[in-house]
């Protein structure tokens, strides 16, 4: 299994993107060029535009200004299935019917390849099996969604995105419903997709220490604009935490990885 990672494929890139809902402008001229084959982490307070940015990259939210470009073309000009073969997006809190079985859910990830009226071929079955194994839900394939725990269900959704078999993976807070062990397992899985397959990953995370630990690059958003962009060491500083998150903290090296780790101050309890 030492096959070299495939050459980096086209990645959706944002150039001066303006987007919003109704009258509300959520993104105000955002640039983001994810590095192919690397893991980019979006951080920022609630409402800073992380999810919207991810959804413009996945062509789910249209841009009102600026452009999202995929392989040299405006992403809006691509046929939908062609985008979906290149970019997989897992939204926050996705919804599906409880009666659906995991296998049937994951199968929807093959929709861009199979089409509305096509039949699954061996290759599709392999992609599904591979995705379910990677997400750790292969033993749950015949279970109904409403029989799963929150963590199992979230992993089933991850398997759906992996089954799309895209060179770019966009994940919006994929660890939300997971306990800490499953959070780490999922981030390790995502990390492996980068390292072994050269998948480009953009992931929204709330846990800054996890972002620091797993990301190659961290992009901080605040009020619809990028306020910091660089390695975890460059971005996760006490100054940024104060300005963007309004949190006083010290940043120390993670004793395991040496990456920056932030520890909030001001909550010292007097020893009883």
């Amino acid at each position, binding site marked *: 299994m030492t096959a070299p990672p495939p050459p980096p494929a086209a990645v959706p890139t944002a150039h001066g993107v303006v987007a919003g809902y109704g009258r509300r402008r959520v993104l105000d001229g955002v640039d983001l060029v994810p590095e192919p084959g690397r893991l980019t982490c979006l951080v920022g307070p609630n409402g800073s535009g992380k999810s919207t940015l991810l*959804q413009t990259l*996945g*062509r*789910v939210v249209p841009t009102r200004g600026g452009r999202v470009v995929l392989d040299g073309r405006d992403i809006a000009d691509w*046929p*939908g*299935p*062609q*985008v*979906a*073969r290149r*970019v*997989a*997006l897992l*939204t926050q809190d*996705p*919804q*599906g*019917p*409880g*009666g*659906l*079985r995991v*296998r*049937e859910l994951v*199968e*929807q*990830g093959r*929709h*861009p390849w*199979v*089409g*509305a*009226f*096509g039949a*699954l*071929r*061996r290759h599709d*079955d392999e992609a599904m099996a591979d995705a379910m194994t990677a997400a750790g839900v292969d033993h749950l394939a*015949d279970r*109904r969604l*409403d029989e799963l725990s929150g963590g199992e269900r979230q992993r089933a959704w991850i398997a759906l995105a992996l089954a*799309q078999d895209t060179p770019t993976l966009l994940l919006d807070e994929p660890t939300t419903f997971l306990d800490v062990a499953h959070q780490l397992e999922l981030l390790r899985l995502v990390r492996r997709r980068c390292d072994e397959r050269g998948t480009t990953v953009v992931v929204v995370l709330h846990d800054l220490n996890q972002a620091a630990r797993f990301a190659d690059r961290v992009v901080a958003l605040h009020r619809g604009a990028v306020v910091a962009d660089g390695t975890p060491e460059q971005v996760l500083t006490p100054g940024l935490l104060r300005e963007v998150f309004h949190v006083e903290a010290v940043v120390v090296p993670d004793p395991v990885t040496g990456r920056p780790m932030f520890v909030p101050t001001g909550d010292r309890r007097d020893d009883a």
Partner: protein
Amino acid sequence: MVTGVARPGRVVVLVVGGVAAAAALLTAHLAVGRLPLPPDDVWAALTGSPTSAFHRVLVVDLRLPRALVGLGAGALLALSGAVLQAVTRNPLAEPGLVGVTTGAALGVVASLAVAAGTGLSPAPTVAALLGGLAAGAATWLVAGRHRSAPGRLVLVGALVAALCTALTSLLLLGRRDSLGSVLRWLVGSLNARTWDDWAALWPWLLAGVPVGLLSAGLVNLLQLDDPLVTSLGRPADRTRLLVLGLAVALAAAAVSATGAVAFVGLLAPHVARRLVGADARALLPVAAVLGAVLLSAADLVAYSTTVSLPGAASQVTGLPVGAVTAVVGGPVLLALLRRSRR
């Protein structure tokens, strides 16, 4: 495993079993009635061997079209209901709840009013079809931008249905004489269906059922929420409109032949989902066959039952099938809901 459907054998068994049941019901329809006929006479009438002309009229011109219309309309209603439940992401959706059946009834009543005013008399089946389609379209438009939220379409549909019912009642107030002829559209009935009704229905079956079954892949996709559908490469709103339009057309076609039959479009998909799960490729064919069997069986009960209604001078035979499906379907659905997980 190259096929995606879980337990495909079960689906095949259910569909084949259902078709066999439908064939048995068809046979029973030809034999049972106010004048029961032995199988020999039915066969003689069908094959045109020398027999009583009365039997021939009874079997070939009265009972056969009625039985066929019942089977076809049942399949269309159930298929429509199954598609609607998936696309609106609401397990309680059915043709009636998005306004189609009440719209069809309103169409017929309105056409009578128009006929009285202008002398034009559009065919009731056409009026029912137009009314059903119009009500479905109104539901879609009024539901507006948030129509893909679960419950939204059904909520608006219930309002449109209530409005249609109110308008129907208003129109009927001025035309009590036509109440009898309108009742079959309000309750749903297969009484006195002829070859003309079958002629209006079979093209819908021929076109609608295959298209409905082929749409299973899209129906599966549309069970997911809009951002996911979009990120999987389909324009969510347009795809939903397309598939919903198909469901409305199927239901309108069925209702234009039978009137507003209650519960078949709700019950058959529910039972089918319990039998084969939520995968539309398995669910749609099983629901369609179940719907045909359900409506046909209910009609058999309806026209072979004699009841004494309170206040009626004599006993009533030939109940409208909609009365039977409502009386039986309501409690059955309640029982199903009580037993369901949620």
